[in-house]
């Protein structure tokens, strides 16, 4: 299906001109009202979120933000959120449930920030709470991996009823560099890691990790934004229409069962009880 190798896809997924969360919000949503701050101690611009209309319907939209200029990159910490970002996301998603708004998330991060202050303020706890919260929300959740889906920092916004991926996006347990460094003590073997990690949209679709792959223009998403927006708009419209027929508890159950079934890693006969 694809002419690109996994290594090339990693480069495309990280391409600086690839459309990001802010671009998707501008192009596909109207009436965007940004919500800031975690209501505990800070505001983390590496997660962008708020209320908007999608074809007239109010939704909550949340995503990672890498920034476009160097100045913006620095302000957004290159899309690596701190606990404040994840707690803001939790706040927005709880509110979405309160007001019955579907949630749309855009995932594009190298990973949660591995910094001193981030640890001090509970990076692990912040991510864990996102996972637990999203697993039980009684509104539709659609997540799209648009670029890099790096580790727990990506998953924290991707416990959805439908997880979609752009054709050349990647999603993995760790960055290929980190993976090579942990397994082979050699981060320069990242290209080799890309091959064994099965991080492409096509591999993940086969593995049942994502439910849909969105076609990108020839050469990648950065070559024709309008084409990407059209594909994204159609996909979100279709998925949302499907999910909105479901009642809240059924949505939570479907999400639970979907993640419950991922990698049971054994024949079904193994269950036993004393």
């Amino acid at each position, binding site marked *: 299906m694809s002419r690109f190798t996994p290594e090339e896809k990693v480069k495309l997924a990280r391409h600086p001109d690839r459309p990001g969360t802010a671009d998707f919000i501008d192009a596909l949503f109207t009436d965007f009202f940004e919500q800031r701050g975690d209501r505990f101690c800070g505001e983390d611009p590496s997660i962008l979120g708020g209320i908007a209309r999608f074809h007239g319907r109010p939704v909550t939209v949340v995503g990672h933000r890498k920034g476009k200029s160097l100045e913006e990159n620095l302000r957004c910490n290159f899309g690596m959120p701190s606990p404040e970002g994840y707690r803001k996301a939790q706040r927005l998603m709880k509110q979405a449930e309160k007001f019955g708004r579907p949630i749309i998330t855009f995932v594009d991060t190298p990973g*949660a*920030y*591995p*910094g*001193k202050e*981030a*640890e*001090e*303020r*509970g*990076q*692990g*706890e912040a*991510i*864990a*709470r996102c*996972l*637990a*919260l999203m*697993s*039980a929300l009684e509104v539709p959740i659609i997540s799209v991996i648009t670029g890099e889906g790096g*580790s*727990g920092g990506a*998953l*924290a916004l991707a*416990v959805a009823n439908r997880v979609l991926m752009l054709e050349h996006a990647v*999603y*993995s*347990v*760790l960055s290929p560099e*980190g*993976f090579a460094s*942990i*397994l082979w003590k050699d981060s320069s073997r990242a290209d080799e890691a890309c091959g*064994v*990690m*099965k*991080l492409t949209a096509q591999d*993940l679709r086969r*593995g049942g*990790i994502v439910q849909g792959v969105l076609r990108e223009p020839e050469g990648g998403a950065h070559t024709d934004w309008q084409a990407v927006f059209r594909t994204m708009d159609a996909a979100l419209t279709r998925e949302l229409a499907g999910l909105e027929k479901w009642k809240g508890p059924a949505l939570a159950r479907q*999400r*639970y069962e979907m*993640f*419950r079934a*991922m*990698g*049971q*890693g*054994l024949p079904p006969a*193994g*269950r*036993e*009880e*004393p």
Partner: protein
Amino acid sequence: MNGTFSRRRDRLLTYRAMREGKITSSRRTRCSACGAESPQLEWDRSLQVCPRCGFHAPVGAYYRLSNILDPGSFQELEEKLAPADPLSFPDYPAKLEQLEEATGLKDGAVAALGRIEGRRAVFGVLDSRFLMGSMGTAVGEKITRAAEYADKKRLPLVIFSASGGARMQEGIFSLMQMAKTAAAIQRFQSRGGLYISCFTHPTTGGVTASFASLGDIMLAEPGALIGFAGPRVIEQTIKEQLPEGFQRAEYLLDHGFLDRIVPRSEWRTVLSQLLALHEKGGRP
């Protein structure tokens, strides 16, 4: 409780705990924290806490359970749950086989039903001898089933974590175990279940960022390293040295992420008190 069976189970647990002991024991044992050598007998008496510096050395899952549970109350759950190789990762099946041989475990977690001072609970214990207690599909599945079993039987859930995080060899499937275990804990808690999370040295990465951080009660052993990113990764990122005691249990207590630090010899007392305070599995 049937006497013959409970005695047999007790012998089985003692046997497994002793088997773990043999792997690490020699006549004198050096502490990996302070470097001092002490007689193994003293280590055994202190439950593998360094007699010199108090370092709580990592211990196997059966050993830990044998020190906490009432004699004869241990009943292993999901013992046959075996790991998978979803990525067909080079050399991984051989590595798993070798570790099973060395540890007597199928993967890095043990689940059990047991009692403390007569009060029943479901226990999950990660074992760092098995690929650093990393969470692959089998570990994730075992923790999930432990939570589901506790939910079904309306029992409290106690989990001891010790983990390097997600297991690289199972790639994205390991990552998904974070969502799966967090969801199972969330469901268990939302129905009134009591979950006590106990951090032991070291617990980092995807385990810290999922079920281990979601306890109603959060406890840790003294000096345990607890974090999302490992200290080396942080030092490389911020290009400075981390202060002494960073990410240790005491540091987390000071920053509001733990209820209490529990020395190894006190687990039974503390857990017993908490289970008593939540009689009927924590439900009113």
